[in-house]
Protein backbone atom coordinates (compact mmCIF):
# COMPACT_ATOMS: atom_id res chain seq x y z
CA UNK A 1 0.00 0.00 0.00
CA UNK A 2 2.80 2.39 0.94
CA UNK A 3 4.69 1.48 -2.22
CA UNK A 4 1.58 2.28 -4.24
CA UNK A 5 1.40 5.63 -2.46
CA UNK A 6 5.04 6.34 -3.26
CA UNK A 7 4.38 5.45 -6.91
CA UNK A 8 1.33 7.69 -7.22
CA UNK A 9 1.51 10.54 -4.69
CA UNK A 10 5.30 10.68 -4.90
CA UNK A 11 5.19 10.51 -8.69
CA UNK A 12 2.75 13.41 -8.97
CA UNK A 13 4.67 15.66 -6.56
CA UNK A 14 7.91 14.86 -8.40
CA UNK A 15 6.20 15.72 -11.70
CA UNK A 16 5.20 19.13 -10.38
CA UNK A 17 8.67 19.67 -8.98
CA UNK A 18 10.71 18.62 -11.97
CA UNK A 19 8.74 19.04 -15.19
CA UNK A 20 9.68 22.32 -16.88
CA UNK A 21 6.58 22.70 -19.01
CA UNK A 22 3.78 22.81 -16.44
CA UNK A 23 2.99 26.51 -16.86
CA UNK A 24 -0.11 26.99 -19.08
CA UNK A 25 1.81 28.83 -21.80
CA UNK A 26 4.57 26.23 -22.04
CA UNK A 27 2.15 23.33 -21.79
CA UNK A 28 -0.18 24.55 -24.51
CA UNK A 29 2.54 25.85 -26.80
CA UNK A 30 5.04 23.03 -26.50
CA UNK A 31 2.88 20.01 -25.85
CA UNK A 32 -0.44 20.71 -27.57
CA UNK A 33 0.08 23.17 -30.42
CA UNK A 34 3.52 21.90 -31.46
CA UNK A 35 2.52 18.24 -32.05
CA UNK A 36 -0.68 19.31 -33.82
CA UNK A 37 1.30 21.37 -36.31
CA UNK A 38 3.75 18.49 -36.72
CA UNK A 39 0.78 16.26 -37.59
CA UNK A 40 -0.53 18.79 -40.11
CA UNK A 41 2.93 19.17 -41.65
CA UNK A 42 3.35 15.45 -42.28
CA UNK A 43 -0.26 15.00 -43.39
CA UNK A 44 0.05 17.72 -46.05
CA UNK A 45 3.50 16.47 -47.04
CA UNK A 46 2.06 12.97 -47.34
CA UNK A 47 -0.78 14.24 -49.53
CA UNK A 48 1.71 16.06 -51.74
CA UNK A 49 4.09 13.12 -52.08
CA UNK A 50 1.34 10.50 -52.01
CA UNK A 51 3.26 8.41 -49.49
CA UNK A 52 0.24 7.56 -47.40
CA UNK A 53 -3.34 8.61 -46.75
CA UNK A 54 -4.49 11.03 -44.05
CA UNK A 55 -5.30 8.20 -41.63
CA UNK A 56 -1.71 6.95 -41.80
CA UNK A 57 -0.28 10.32 -40.76
CA UNK A 58 -3.02 11.52 -38.40
CA UNK A 59 -3.18 8.37 -36.31
CA UNK A 60 0.58 7.78 -36.38
CA UNK A 61 1.51 11.33 -35.41
CA UNK A 62 -1.18 11.43 -32.73
CA UNK A 63 0.32 8.34 -31.05
CA UNK A 64 3.80 9.82 -31.46
CA UNK A 65 2.66 13.11 -29.91
CA UNK A 66 3.05 11.58 -26.45
CA UNK A 67 6.80 11.23 -27.02
CA UNK A 68 7.56 14.89 -26.30
CA UNK A 69 6.14 14.76 -22.79
CA UNK A 70 7.44 11.26 -22.13
CA UNK A 71 10.99 11.50 -23.48
CA UNK A 72 11.76 15.00 -22.22
CA UNK A 73 9.72 14.43 -19.07
CA UNK A 74 11.68 11.27 -18.24
CA UNK A 75 14.89 13.18 -18.78
CA UNK A 76 13.73 16.05 -16.59
CA UNK A 77 12.54 13.58 -13.93
CA UNK A 78 16.16 12.75 -13.19
CA UNK A 79 18.25 15.37 -14.97
CA UNK A 80 16.59 18.26 -13.12
CA UNK A 81 17.60 16.76 -9.78
CA UNK A 82 21.11 17.92 -10.65
CA UNK A 83 19.78 21.40 -11.43
CA UNK A 84 18.07 21.74 -8.05
CA UNK A 85 20.84 19.96 -6.14
CA UNK A 86 18.34 17.49 -4.73
CA UNK A 87 19.77 14.24 -6.08
CA UNK A 88 21.75 13.50 -2.92
CA UNK A 89 18.67 13.87 -0.76
CA UNK A 90 16.68 11.57 -3.03
CA UNK A 91 19.46 8.97 -3.01
CA UNK A 92 19.51 9.09 0.79
CA UNK A 93 15.99 7.68 0.80
CA UNK A 94 15.72 4.18 2.23
CA UNK A 95 12.78 3.45 -0.10
CA UNK A 96 12.96 1.23 -3.18
CA UNK A 97 14.61 3.04 -6.07
CA UNK A 98 12.34 1.20 -8.48
CA UNK A 99 9.25 2.63 -6.78
CA UNK A 100 10.73 6.11 -6.41
CA UNK A 101 11.75 6.44 -10.05
CA UNK A 102 9.27 4.27 -11.93
CA UNK A 103 6.52 6.20 -10.17
CA UNK A 104 7.90 9.30 -11.82
CA UNK A 105 7.19 7.87 -15.29
CA UNK A 106 3.45 7.55 -14.62
CA UNK A 107 2.46 11.25 -14.66
CA UNK A 108 4.45 11.73 -17.85
CA UNK A 109 2.64 8.79 -19.43
CA UNK A 110 -0.68 10.34 -18.36
CA UNK A 111 0.44 13.64 -19.79
CA UNK A 112 1.46 11.90 -23.01
CA UNK A 113 -1.95 10.22 -23.24
CA UNK A 114 -3.71 13.56 -22.88
CA UNK A 115 -1.55 15.10 -25.60
CA UNK A 116 -2.05 12.14 -27.93
CA UNK A 117 -5.84 12.27 -27.46
CA UNK A 118 -5.87 16.03 -28.09
CA UNK A 119 -3.69 15.69 -31.19
CA UNK A 120 -5.81 12.87 -32.58
CA UNK A 121 -9.03 14.81 -32.00
CA UNK A 122 -7.60 18.04 -33.42
CA UNK A 123 -6.04 16.32 -36.43
CA UNK A 124 -9.20 14.35 -37.20
CA UNK A 125 -11.41 17.44 -36.95
CA UNK A 126 -9.11 19.66 -39.03
CA UNK A 127 -8.46 17.13 -41.78
CA UNK A 128 -11.86 15.44 -41.74
CA UNK A 129 -10.81 11.94 -40.70
CA UNK A 130 -13.73 9.82 -39.51
CA UNK A 131 -12.94 7.23 -36.87
CA UNK A 132 -15.64 4.62 -36.24
CA UNK A 133 -17.14 5.16 -32.75
CA UNK A 134 -16.69 1.44 -32.06
CA UNK A 135 -12.94 1.85 -32.52
CA UNK A 136 -12.61 4.50 -29.82
CA UNK A 137 -12.14 2.19 -26.77
CA UNK A 138 -9.46 0.24 -28.65
CA UNK A 139 -7.83 3.49 -29.77
CA UNK A 140 -7.83 4.74 -26.18
CA UNK A 141 -6.12 1.49 -25.16
CA UNK A 142 -3.51 1.87 -27.91
CA UNK A 143 -2.77 5.46 -26.90
CA UNK A 144 -2.50 4.43 -23.24
CA UNK A 145 -0.13 1.55 -23.94
CA UNK A 146 1.97 3.72 -26.27
CA UNK A 147 2.21 6.52 -23.71
CA UNK A 148 3.19 4.16 -20.89
CA UNK A 149 5.77 2.45 -23.03
CA UNK A 150 7.17 5.82 -24.07
CA UNK A 151 7.18 6.99 -20.43
CA UNK A 152 9.44 4.09 -19.45
CA UNK A 153 11.65 4.76 -22.47
CA UNK A 154 11.99 8.38 -21.30
CA UNK A 155 12.87 7.19 -17.82
CA UNK A 156 15.60 4.93 -19.21
CA UNK A 157 17.05 7.94 -21.01
CA UNK A 158 16.69 9.97 -17.82
CA UNK A 159 18.62 7.28 -15.93
CA UNK A 160 21.59 8.06 -18.16
CA UNK A 161 21.45 11.47 -16.51
CA UNK A 162 22.88 9.84 -13.38
CA UNK A 163 26.02 9.11 -15.37
CA UNK A 164 26.21 11.74 -18.12
CA UNK A 165 25.79 15.42 -17.58
CA UNK A 166 24.70 16.35 -21.14
CA UNK A 167 21.68 14.09 -21.21
CA UNK A 168 19.59 16.56 -23.23
CA UNK A 169 21.60 15.70 -26.34
CA UNK A 170 20.46 12.10 -26.03
CA UNK A 171 16.83 13.15 -25.57
CA UNK A 172 16.92 15.42 -28.61
CA UNK A 173 18.43 12.70 -30.78
CA UNK A 174 15.94 10.15 -29.46
CA UNK A 175 12.92 12.29 -30.36
CA UNK A 176 14.31 12.78 -33.86
CA UNK A 177 14.97 9.05 -34.19
CA UNK A 178 11.42 8.25 -33.11
CA UNK A 179 10.11 10.55 -35.81
CA UNK A 180 12.07 8.54 -38.35
CA UNK A 181 12.05 4.98 -37.03
CA UNK A 182 8.68 4.31 -35.41
CA UNK A 183 6.90 3.96 -38.75
CA UNK A 184 4.74 6.96 -37.97
CA UNK A 185 5.85 9.02 -40.95
CA UNK A 186 8.09 6.66 -42.90
CA UNK A 187 6.78 3.13 -43.47
CA UNK A 188 9.24 0.56 -42.08
CA UNK A 189 9.32 -1.10 -45.51
CA UNK A 190 10.90 2.09 -46.89
CA UNK A 191 13.73 1.99 -44.36
CA UNK A 192 16.97 -0.03 -44.55
CA UNK A 193 16.58 -3.29 -42.64
CA UNK A 194 18.81 -2.30 -39.73
CA UNK A 195 16.97 0.97 -39.17
CA UNK A 196 13.61 -0.79 -39.33
CA UNK A 197 14.95 -3.30 -36.78
CA UNK A 198 15.87 -0.48 -34.38
CA UNK A 199 12.37 0.91 -34.84
CA UNK A 200 10.89 -2.40 -33.70
CA UNK A 201 12.52 -1.89 -30.28
CA UNK A 202 11.31 1.67 -29.86
CA UNK A 203 8.10 2.60 -28.09
CA UNK A 204 5.18 3.92 -30.19
CA UNK A 205 6.00 1.71 -33.22
CA UNK A 206 3.57 -1.08 -32.36
CA UNK A 207 1.00 1.15 -30.61
CA UNK A 208 0.80 3.27 -33.77
CA UNK A 209 0.35 0.16 -35.91
CA UNK A 210 -2.44 -1.06 -33.62
CA UNK A 211 -4.14 2.34 -33.62
CA UNK A 212 -4.05 2.46 -37.41
CA UNK A 213 -5.64 -0.97 -37.63
CA UNK A 214 -8.42 0.07 -35.25
CA UNK A 215 -9.00 3.42 -36.97
CA UNK A 216 -9.32 1.50 -40.24
CA UNK A 217 -12.20 -0.51 -38.81
CA UNK A 218 -10.31 -3.63 -37.70
CA UNK A 219 -11.54 -5.62 -34.71
CA UNK A 220 -9.73 -5.23 -31.38
CA UNK A 221 -8.57 -8.86 -31.58
CA UNK A 222 -6.63 -7.99 -34.73
CA UNK A 223 -4.84 -5.21 -32.85
CA UNK A 224 -4.00 -7.34 -29.84
CA UNK A 225 -0.76 -8.65 -31.29
CA UNK A 226 0.88 -5.24 -31.92
CA UNK A 227 -0.53 -4.01 -28.60
CA UNK A 228 1.01 -7.01 -26.82
CA UNK A 229 4.37 -6.31 -28.46
CA UNK A 230 4.13 -2.66 -27.37
CA UNK A 231 3.50 -3.82 -23.80
CA UNK A 232 6.59 -6.03 -23.97
CA UNK A 233 8.69 -3.20 -25.42
CA UNK A 234 7.49 -0.88 -22.63
CA UNK A 235 8.21 -3.49 -19.97
CA UNK A 236 11.70 -4.00 -21.38
CA UNK A 237 12.41 -0.26 -21.19
CA UNK A 238 11.06 -0.19 -17.60
CA UNK A 239 13.40 -3.03 -16.61
CA UNK A 240 16.32 -1.33 -18.36
CA UNK A 241 15.53 1.95 -16.58
CA UNK A 242 15.46 0.20 -13.19
CA UNK A 243 18.75 -1.57 -13.96
CA UNK A 244 20.48 1.59 -15.15
CA UNK A 245 19.34 3.49 -12.07
CA UNK A 246 20.68 0.73 -9.85
CA UNK A 247 24.00 0.41 -11.68
CA UNK A 248 24.64 4.16 -11.87
CA UNK A 249 23.77 4.68 -8.22
CA UNK A 250 26.22 1.97 -7.16
CA UNK A 251 28.82 3.42 -9.52
CA UNK A 252 28.26 6.90 -8.10
CA UNK A 253 29.05 5.65 -4.60
CA UNK A 254 32.14 3.84 -5.80
CA UNK A 255 33.55 6.46 -8.17
CA UNK A 256 31.99 9.65 -6.77
CA UNK A 257 30.56 10.26 -10.23
CA UNK A 258 27.60 12.32 -9.04
CA UNK A 259 27.75 15.82 -7.65
CA UNK A 260 25.18 14.65 -5.17
CA UNK A 261 25.54 17.31 -2.53
Amino acid sequence: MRTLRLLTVGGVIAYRALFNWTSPGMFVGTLLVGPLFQLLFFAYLGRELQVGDDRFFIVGNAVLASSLACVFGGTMAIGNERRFGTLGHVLLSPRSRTAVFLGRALPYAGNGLLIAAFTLTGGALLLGLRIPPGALPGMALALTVGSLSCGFFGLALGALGLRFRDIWVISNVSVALMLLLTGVNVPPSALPGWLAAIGQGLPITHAAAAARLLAGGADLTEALRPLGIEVLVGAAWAVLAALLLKVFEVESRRHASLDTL
Partner: protein
Amino acid sequence: MGDAIEAARLRRTYRSRTGFIRRRTTEIEAVRGVDLTVARGELFGLLGPNGAGKTTTIKLLNTLLIPTSGTARICGFDVERETREVRRRIGYVFGGDRGLYDRLSGLDNLRYFAELYGVPPRDQKRRIAELLDLVKLAGRERERVEGYSRGMRQRLHIARGLLHSPEVLFLDEPSIGVDPVAARELRRTVADLAATGTTVLLTTHYMAEADELCDRIAVIADGRIQALGTPAELRTHADGRRVVEIEAYGVPDDTVAGLQRLSGVREAAVEARGALQILTVQSDAGVDVQGEVLHALGGVRLGRVSTREPTLEDAYVAIVSGS
Protein backbone atom coordinates in the same frame (compact mmCIF):
# COMPACT_ATOMS: atom_id res chain seq x y z
CA MET B 1 23.86 0.21 23.29
CA GLY B 2 26.82 1.03 21.03
CA ASP B 3 28.05 4.33 19.71
CA ALA B 4 26.01 6.28 17.18
CA ILE B 5 28.92 6.78 14.79
CA GLU B 6 32.03 4.64 14.56
CA ALA B 7 34.71 5.14 11.92
CA ALA B 8 37.92 3.17 11.80
CA ARG B 9 40.85 3.88 9.45
CA LEU B 10 38.43 5.46 7.01
CA ARG B 11 40.05 6.38 3.71
CA ARG B 12 38.74 7.74 0.46
CA THR B 13 40.68 8.35 -2.73
CA TYR B 14 39.23 10.22 -5.69
CA ARG B 15 40.46 9.37 -9.16
CA SER B 16 39.99 11.82 -11.98
CA ARG B 17 40.95 11.35 -15.61
CA THR B 18 42.00 14.16 -17.90
CA GLY B 19 42.96 14.30 -21.56
CA PHE B 20 41.38 12.54 -24.50
CA ILE B 21 44.23 10.94 -26.41
CA ARG B 22 46.79 10.89 -23.61
CA ARG B 23 44.62 9.87 -20.70
CA ARG B 24 46.08 10.84 -17.36
CA THR B 25 44.74 9.61 -14.06
CA THR B 26 45.14 11.78 -10.99
CA GLU B 27 44.54 10.45 -7.50
CA ILE B 28 43.59 12.66 -4.60
CA GLU B 29 43.44 11.27 -1.09
CA ALA B 30 40.60 13.26 0.43
CA VAL B 31 40.35 11.24 3.65
CA ARG B 32 43.46 9.48 4.92
CA GLY B 33 42.56 7.23 7.82
CA VAL B 34 39.95 8.89 9.98
CA ASP B 35 39.15 7.27 13.32
CA LEU B 36 36.34 8.63 15.40
CA THR B 37 33.46 7.56 17.57
CA VAL B 38 30.45 9.65 18.50
CA ALA B 39 28.32 8.55 21.43
CA ARG B 40 24.55 8.50 21.21
CA GLY B 41 23.10 11.90 22.02
CA GLU B 42 26.46 13.61 21.61
CA LEU B 43 26.86 16.85 19.67
CA PHE B 44 30.11 16.38 17.83
CA GLY B 45 31.87 19.05 15.79
CA LEU B 46 34.05 18.41 12.77
CA LEU B 47 36.13 21.47 11.97
CA GLY B 48 38.65 22.04 9.26
CA PRO B 49 39.65 24.33 6.43
CA ASN B 50 38.15 24.07 2.94
CA GLY B 51 39.29 20.85 1.27
CA ALA B 52 40.25 19.26 4.58
CA GLY B 53 37.97 16.25 4.04
CA LYS B 54 34.94 17.22 6.14
CA THR B 55 32.29 16.79 3.47
CA THR B 56 33.90 13.62 2.12
CA THR B 57 33.87 12.20 5.65
CA ILE B 58 30.17 13.02 5.94
CA LYS B 59 29.45 11.47 2.52
CA LEU B 60 31.21 8.30 3.65
CA LEU B 61 29.20 8.21 6.86
CA ASN B 62 25.85 8.94 5.21
CA THR B 63 26.29 6.23 2.51
CA LEU B 64 26.66 8.52 -0.51
CA LEU B 65 30.25 7.33 -0.96
CA ILE B 66 31.91 3.97 -0.39
CA PRO B 67 35.18 4.08 1.56
CA THR B 68 38.30 3.13 -0.39
CA SER B 69 39.31 1.29 2.79
CA GLY B 70 38.39 1.23 6.45
CA THR B 71 34.95 0.84 7.98
CA ALA B 72 32.19 3.00 9.34
CA ARG B 73 29.03 2.11 11.21
CA ILE B 74 25.97 4.16 12.10
CA CYS B 75 24.03 2.83 15.09
CA GLY B 76 25.81 -0.46 14.51
CA PHE B 77 25.01 -0.74 10.79
CA ASP B 78 27.73 -0.84 8.18
CA VAL B 79 27.57 2.15 5.82
CA GLU B 80 28.77 0.14 2.84
CA ARG B 81 26.60 -2.97 3.09
CA GLU B 82 23.60 -2.05 5.26
CA THR B 83 22.72 1.18 3.50
CA ARG B 84 18.97 0.92 3.91
CA GLU B 85 19.24 0.47 7.68
CA VAL B 86 21.69 3.35 7.89
CA ARG B 87 19.51 5.64 5.78
CA ARG B 88 16.50 4.97 7.99
CA ARG B 89 18.46 6.33 10.93
CA ILE B 90 20.16 9.39 9.52
CA GLY B 91 19.15 12.88 8.53
CA TYR B 92 21.27 15.19 6.45
CA VAL B 93 21.23 18.97 6.31
CA PHE B 94 23.62 21.15 4.41
CA GLY B 95 23.99 24.87 4.09
CA GLY B 96 23.35 26.86 0.95
CA ASP B 97 20.57 27.81 -1.40
CA ARG B 98 20.24 24.56 -3.33
CA GLY B 99 18.81 21.17 -2.45
CA LEU B 100 15.12 22.05 -2.53
CA TYR B 101 12.49 21.96 -5.26
CA ASP B 102 12.06 25.64 -6.03
CA ARG B 103 8.78 25.26 -7.91
CA LEU B 104 7.08 23.52 -5.01
CA SER B 105 5.86 25.07 -1.80
CA GLY B 106 7.70 24.37 1.43
CA LEU B 107 4.83 22.10 2.41
CA ASP B 108 5.04 20.05 -0.79
CA ASN B 109 8.81 19.73 -0.42
CA LEU B 110 8.24 18.25 3.03
CA ARG B 111 5.39 16.03 1.80
CA TYR B 112 7.56 14.59 -0.94
CA PHE B 113 10.53 13.89 1.30
CA ALA B 114 8.21 12.46 3.94
CA GLU B 115 7.26 9.87 1.30
CA LEU B 116 10.88 9.28 0.33
CA TYR B 117 12.06 8.96 3.91
CA GLY B 118 9.35 6.52 4.84
CA VAL B 119 7.27 8.60 7.26
CA PRO B 120 4.03 6.62 7.71
CA PRO B 121 1.15 8.39 5.87
CA ARG B 122 -0.96 8.68 9.03
CA ASP B 123 1.88 10.55 10.79
CA GLN B 124 2.92 12.85 7.96
CA LYS B 125 0.49 15.71 8.54
CA ARG B 126 1.23 15.93 12.26
CA ARG B 127 4.98 15.57 11.83
CA ILE B 128 5.17 18.22 9.10
CA ALA B 129 3.09 20.65 11.21
CA GLU B 130 5.41 20.06 14.20
CA LEU B 131 8.49 20.72 12.12
CA LEU B 132 7.04 23.82 10.48
CA ASP B 133 6.43 25.15 13.98
CA LEU B 134 9.91 24.13 15.10
CA VAL B 135 11.65 25.96 12.25
CA LYS B 136 9.21 28.86 12.36
CA LEU B 137 7.85 28.43 8.85
CA ALA B 138 4.25 27.86 9.91
CA GLY B 139 2.08 30.27 7.91
CA ARG B 140 4.58 30.45 5.03
CA GLU B 141 4.48 26.75 4.11
CA ARG B 142 2.18 27.19 1.10
CA GLU B 143 4.50 29.68 -0.62
CA ARG B 144 6.81 28.50 -3.37
CA VAL B 145 10.36 27.89 -2.17
CA GLU B 146 11.76 30.06 -4.98
CA GLY B 147 10.47 33.06 -3.02
CA TYR B 148 12.06 32.02 0.28
CA SER B 149 14.95 33.92 1.81
CA ARG B 150 18.19 32.08 2.46
CA GLY B 151 17.35 31.76 6.14
CA MET B 152 13.92 30.29 5.34
CA ARG B 153 15.50 27.79 2.95
CA GLN B 154 17.98 26.81 5.61
CA ARG B 155 15.19 26.24 8.10
CA LEU B 156 13.33 24.16 5.54
CA HIS B 157 16.49 22.09 5.04
CA ILE B 158 16.50 21.39 8.76
CA ALA B 159 12.82 20.45 8.79
CA ARG B 160 13.44 18.06 5.90
CA GLY B 161 16.39 16.47 7.69
CA LEU B 162 14.23 15.82 10.74
CA LEU B 163 11.12 14.45 9.00
CA HIS B 164 11.73 10.82 9.90
CA SER B 165 13.02 11.63 13.40
CA PRO B 166 16.55 10.43 12.64
CA GLU B 167 18.77 9.08 15.39
CA VAL B 168 21.82 10.70 13.81
CA LEU B 169 21.75 14.10 12.15
CA PHE B 170 24.54 15.34 9.89
CA LEU B 171 24.69 19.12 9.71
CA ASP B 172 27.15 20.26 7.05
CA GLU B 173 27.83 23.97 7.55
CA PRO B 174 24.16 24.71 8.27
CA SER B 175 24.68 28.35 9.24
CA ILE B 176 26.66 29.36 6.16
CA GLY B 177 25.30 32.63 4.78
CA VAL B 178 22.62 32.91 7.46
CA ASP B 179 22.15 36.23 9.26
CA PRO B 180 23.19 36.45 12.94
CA VAL B 181 19.65 36.31 14.32
CA ALA B 182 18.76 33.29 12.20
CA ALA B 183 22.09 31.67 13.09
CA ARG B 184 21.31 32.07 16.78
CA GLU B 185 17.87 30.49 16.26
CA LEU B 186 19.53 27.68 14.38
CA ARG B 187 22.02 27.05 17.19
CA ARG B 188 19.16 26.92 19.65
CA THR B 189 17.34 24.38 17.47
CA VAL B 190 20.46 22.24 17.20
CA ALA B 191 21.05 22.40 20.95
CA ASP B 192 17.41 21.40 21.57
CA LEU B 193 17.78 18.44 19.24
CA ALA B 194 20.86 17.20 21.04
CA ALA B 195 19.07 17.69 24.35
CA THR B 196 16.30 15.36 23.19
CA GLY B 197 18.79 12.60 22.41
CA THR B 198 19.52 13.10 18.70
CA THR B 199 23.16 12.53 17.86
CA VAL B 200 24.46 15.47 15.85
CA LEU B 201 27.59 15.65 13.73
CA LEU B 202 28.16 19.30 12.87
CA THR B 203 30.66 20.79 10.49
CA THR B 204 31.14 24.53 10.63
CA HIS B 205 33.63 27.27 9.99
CA TYR B 206 32.30 29.33 12.88
CA MET B 207 34.36 28.60 15.97
CA ALA B 208 31.97 30.38 18.30
CA GLU B 209 29.22 28.09 17.05
CA ALA B 210 31.31 24.99 17.65
CA ASP B 211 32.46 26.26 21.03
CA GLU B 212 28.91 27.00 22.14
CA LEU B 213 27.32 23.80 20.87
CA CYS B 214 29.71 20.89 20.71
CA ASP B 215 30.43 18.35 23.42
CA ARG B 216 33.56 17.33 21.53
CA ILE B 217 35.33 18.61 18.45
CA ALA B 218 37.63 16.97 15.94
CA VAL B 219 39.85 19.19 13.83
CA ILE B 220 40.48 17.65 10.44
CA ALA B 221 43.11 18.87 8.00
CA ASP B 222 44.76 17.20 5.06
CA GLY B 223 42.34 14.28 5.38
CA ARG B 224 43.42 13.38 8.91
CA ILE B 225 42.11 14.12 12.37
CA GLN B 226 44.70 16.50 13.82
CA ALA B 227 43.14 17.00 17.24
CA LEU B 228 40.12 15.70 19.10
CA GLY B 229 38.65 16.68 22.45
CA THR B 230 36.27 18.96 24.28
CA PRO B 231 36.43 22.66 23.37
CA ALA B 232 38.32 23.28 26.62
CA GLU B 233 40.83 20.55 25.79
CA LEU B 234 41.36 21.93 22.30
CA ARG B 235 41.97 25.40 23.65
CA THR B 236 45.09 24.04 25.39
CA HIS B 237 46.69 23.81 21.93
CA ALA B 238 47.02 27.57 22.13
CA ASP B 239 48.28 27.57 25.74
CA GLY B 240 51.47 29.45 26.27
CA ARG B 241 50.55 31.95 23.60
CA ARG B 242 49.32 35.50 23.51
CA VAL B 243 47.38 37.09 20.72
CA VAL B 244 47.71 40.56 19.25
CA GLU B 245 44.65 41.57 17.24
CA ILE B 246 44.91 44.55 14.90
CA GLU B 247 42.25 46.20 12.79
CA ALA B 248 43.78 47.16 9.46
CA TYR B 249 42.96 48.16 5.89
CA GLY B 250 44.85 46.75 2.89
CA VAL B 251 47.51 44.54 4.47
CA PRO B 252 49.63 43.09 1.61
CA ASP B 253 50.09 39.29 1.56
CA ASP B 254 53.88 39.57 1.67
CA THR B 255 53.61 41.65 4.83
CA VAL B 256 51.65 38.87 6.51
CA ALA B 257 54.29 36.38 5.37
CA GLY B 258 56.94 38.69 6.80
CA LEU B 259 55.16 38.83 10.16
CA GLN B 260 55.33 35.04 10.37
CA ARG B 261 59.11 35.24 10.15
CA LEU B 262 59.42 37.59 13.13
CA SER B 263 61.13 36.08 16.15
CA GLY B 264 58.59 34.73 18.66
CA VAL B 265 55.65 34.82 16.22
CA ARG B 266 53.87 31.46 15.95
CA GLU B 267 51.05 32.29 13.50
CA ALA B 268 49.80 35.31 11.61
CA ALA B 269 46.45 35.32 9.82
CA VAL B 270 44.17 37.88 8.23
CA GLU B 271 40.39 37.71 8.19
CA ALA B 272 38.48 40.10 5.91
CA ARG B 273 35.29 41.73 7.23
CA GLY B 274 34.22 43.88 4.32
CA ALA B 275 36.86 46.55 3.80
CA LEU B 276 38.21 45.96 7.30
CA GLN B 277 40.81 43.27 7.96
CA ILE B 278 41.42 41.65 11.31
CA LEU B 279 45.08 40.69 11.61
CA THR B 280 45.68 38.09 14.31
CA VAL B 281 49.25 37.43 15.40
CA GLN B 282 49.93 34.62 17.85
CA SER B 283 53.22 34.68 19.69
CA ASP B 284 54.91 32.90 22.59
CA ALA B 285 53.44 34.24 25.83
CA GLY B 286 56.77 35.48 27.09
CA VAL B 287 57.56 37.51 24.01
CA ASP B 288 56.04 40.92 23.30
CA VAL B 289 55.93 41.21 19.52
CA GLN B 290 53.46 44.08 19.33
CA GLY B 291 56.11 46.73 18.65
CA GLU B 292 57.77 44.72 15.90
CA VAL B 293 54.46 43.87 14.31
CA LEU B 294 53.35 47.51 14.24
CA HIS B 295 56.72 48.44 12.80
CA ALA B 296 56.33 45.84 10.05
CA LEU B 297 52.91 47.29 9.27
CA GLY B 298 54.35 50.74 8.67
CA GLY B 299 52.38 52.46 5.92
CA VAL B 300 49.27 50.33 6.46
CA ARG B 301 46.20 52.16 7.79
CA LEU B 302 45.45 50.72 11.23
CA GLY B 303 42.51 50.80 13.62
CA ARG B 304 42.24 49.36 17.11
CA VAL B 305 45.12 47.26 18.48
CA SER B 306 44.46 44.88 21.37
CA THR B 307 46.05 41.97 23.19
CA ARG B 308 43.96 39.05 24.45
CA GLU B 309 44.02 35.45 25.67
CA PRO B 310 43.80 32.70 23.03
CA THR B 311 40.34 31.44 22.00
CA LEU B 312 39.20 28.20 20.41
CA GLU B 313 39.71 29.86 17.04
CA ASP B 314 43.34 30.56 17.90
CA ALA B 315 43.73 26.95 18.96
CA TYR B 316 42.16 25.84 15.68
CA VAL B 317 44.56 28.01 13.70
CA ALA B 318 47.47 26.59 15.69
CA ILE B 319 46.32 23.01 15.04
CA VAL B 320 45.65 23.49 11.34
CA SER B 321 48.86 25.44 10.78
CA GLY B 322 50.83 22.68 12.46
CA SER B 323 49.31 19.91 10.36
